[in-house]
């Protein structure tokens, strides 16, 4: 009797071109496909992850079943031949699957290694699957473990702290200039997405207040509300420069909106406190000559990209450490998983033998008469002694360490189950 199989099937940005991924991506949310999968025979536990870069199935197969073809058909539809589909797909089993899941959770398999979104996506996917009752004890354990592995990687390596992104680079530079960002004020010019993201990072670092300036005041107001800040019109721009420290500009304007003279005039009333300008607009919003003013630092999108490049180099080292952590944890899980197979067998075996003893004892006592309490106790003792002695060798056999380093626990479990007729 073969044990259940842990399988992972998936496509990601590495193996599969975007045209294929587009077709597979589950755009309608999780609930529909998860429910549809309930019809697939042989699926014991499963969960599904879909992001813009990957679609992955993690499943536990019922013993003796093979669900690969069914899942492939589910993913690619009937139009794609299975052989073609297999070219795009990776299918991992057992420990390999565990390791892959941990790599994904720890953001080591991401397109942007170290980005933090993936863990959130994983948690959402898991929540859906567990809500619909698709996961069982093994996947519950495994997914929770993957969250803690991700956390361990994040705390023990620097991989997360130097996530390669423009907004991270902006925060890093701001820290080099201001040291502590607490109490520093941010001005967003234009309400673009990139600016919003960068502002979010800065707020995460504890900046004081956020001011939003936008051509349409309504949009500025909505964004300002998000950060508990205030909205101003574009005419107030120069006046605002007196109170803010970090300026992120991303308007769609075709011309320069802030000139060197504008900023220079403000520096005196600012008492020369540094100003950090980030211009992520293309074409640029800010006069490149701003950078020539003392205590003013101007970075455009290309300058930030070079900081991003610098971070990338340092991160490779961290990835090695992170991968080691993942290896370690997947090995630990494998050991746990193995034990899981032996332990229920031991329990079942013990229960079966004890049940036989108790049954026969009851039968015998029914037929005997005039048995004293003392005699009864002795009979019971005898039965339990026989049970223990009969079980001794099979249990030792099950619990014994692998022989000559070869792991044959699965086989041993199968043998015992067959001999004692367990699970029937």
């Amino acid at each position, binding site marked *: 009797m073969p044990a259940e199989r842990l399988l992972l099937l998936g496509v990601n940005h590495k193996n599969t071109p975007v045209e294929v991924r587009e077709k597979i991506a589950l755009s309608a949310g999780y609930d529909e496909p998860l429910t549809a999968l309930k019809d697939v025979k042989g699926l014991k536990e499963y969960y599904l992850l879909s992001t813009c870069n990957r679609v992955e199935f993690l499943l536990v197969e019922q013993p003796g079943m093979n669900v690969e073809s069914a899942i492939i058909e589910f993913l690619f539809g009937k139009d794609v031949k299975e052989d073609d589909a297999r070219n795009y797909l990776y299918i991992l089993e057992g420990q390999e699957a565990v390791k892959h899941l941990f790599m994904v959770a720890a953001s080591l398999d991401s397109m942007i290694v170290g980005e933090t979104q993936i863990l959130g996506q994983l948690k959402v996917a898991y929540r859906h699957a567990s809500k619909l009752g698709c996961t069982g004890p093994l996947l519950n354990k495994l997914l929770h473990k993957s969250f803690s592995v991700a956390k361990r990687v994040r705390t023990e390596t620097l991989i997360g702290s130097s996530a390669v992104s423009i907004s991270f680079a902006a925060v890093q*530079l701001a*820290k*080099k*200039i*201001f*040291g*502590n960002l607490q109490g520093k004020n941010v001005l967003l010019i234009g309400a673009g997405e990139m600016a919003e993201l960068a502002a979010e990072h800065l707020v995460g670092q504890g900046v004081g207040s956020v001011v939003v300036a936008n051509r349409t005041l309504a949009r500025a107001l909505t964004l300002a509300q998000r950060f508990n800040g205030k909205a101003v019109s574009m005419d107030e721009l120069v006046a605002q420069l007196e109170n803010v420290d970090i300026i992120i500009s991303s308007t769609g304007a075709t011309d320069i909106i802030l000139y060197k003279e504008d900023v220079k005039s403000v520096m*005196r009333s*600012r*008492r*020369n*406190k*540094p100003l950090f300008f980030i211009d992520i607009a293309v074409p640029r919003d800010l006069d490149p000559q701003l*950078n020539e003013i*003392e*205590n003013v*630092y101007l*970075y455009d999108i290309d*300058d930030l990209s*070079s*900081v991003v490049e*610098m971070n990338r180099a340092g991160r490779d080292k961290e990835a090695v450490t992170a991968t080691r952590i993942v290896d370690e944890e997947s090995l630990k899980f494998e050991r746990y998983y193995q034990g899981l197979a032996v332990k229920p067998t031991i329990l079942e075996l013990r229960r079966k033998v004890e049940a036989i003893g108790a049954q026969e004892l009851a039968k015998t006592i029914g037929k005997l008469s005039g048995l004293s309490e003392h005699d009864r106790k002795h009979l019971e003792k005898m039965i339990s002694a026989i049970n223990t002695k009969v079980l001794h060798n099979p249990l030792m056999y099950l619990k014994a360490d692998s022989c000559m380093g070869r792991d044959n626990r699965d086989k041993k479990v199968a043998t015992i189950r067959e001999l004692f007729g367990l699970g029937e």
Partner: protein
Amino acid sequence: MEELNYLLYISVLGVTTVAMAAYLVFFISQNKAVRKVARAILVSSGVLQTLYIVSRYMLTGHTPITSQHETVIFFAWATTWAYLSFRWRYTVKNFGTFVAILIFCLVFISSLAHRDVTVLVPALQSAWLPIHAGVSLVAYGFLSLAFCGGLMYLLLERELKAKKFGFFFERLPSLEALDQLNSHCITAGFVFLTLGIVTGSVWARQAWGTYWQWDPKETWSLITWFLYLVQIHQRLTVGWRGKRAAVMAVVGFLSVLFTLWGVTYFLGGVHSYAG
């Protein structure tokens, strides 16, 4: 005594060199364990310098700040302890490396001057000697820290402005921290410098009969003092900071060095004892 004195000097030289080497290793590797070792070695260097100055005091019978050698060693001692006292209050990333290099330079320069014990000229036989010279050199200690901070500021500022992130970018603290350091050290140094000039003036009244006689050393001290005064004043009134303040810290320190050596060698005057 003379042997012990010599032995102490050799160990100061050795230990300071090792301290600087350890700080350099830390600066390059950024290994925290190395920093701990480097710091411990620097503290031992500070202790040895103290012992050396004490033994020199016992050897010469007066406060050892009269010859060129003694002055520079005292300068190194002041810098070391100014740094350690500072470090004790708050840390500035990798500041120690720059200071250790400076301390090493001073100790090394002291080894170039002769170590002979000179007989004190009558004018210097006064209780004012340790006060005036000691306070002045402690001022120099703090001002030399400001110099290191200014140098670090300029290095980092250059990389930030040019957007070329090299060796120093990762290893230096924030501009803000360096500017703060600069301001603190200059303020402390300025207070001691003022005290040094005032005590010197009082002593001059006793020794030469006049508070101020425009001797080159006096003049240059005053120039230095004004350089720092302007800087502090401008910071308080119009917010001079950052690059300008860093440049001023470097210029001020060059003026300090000129007052200490330049005046003696190029200008002479009644103040030129150390030589």
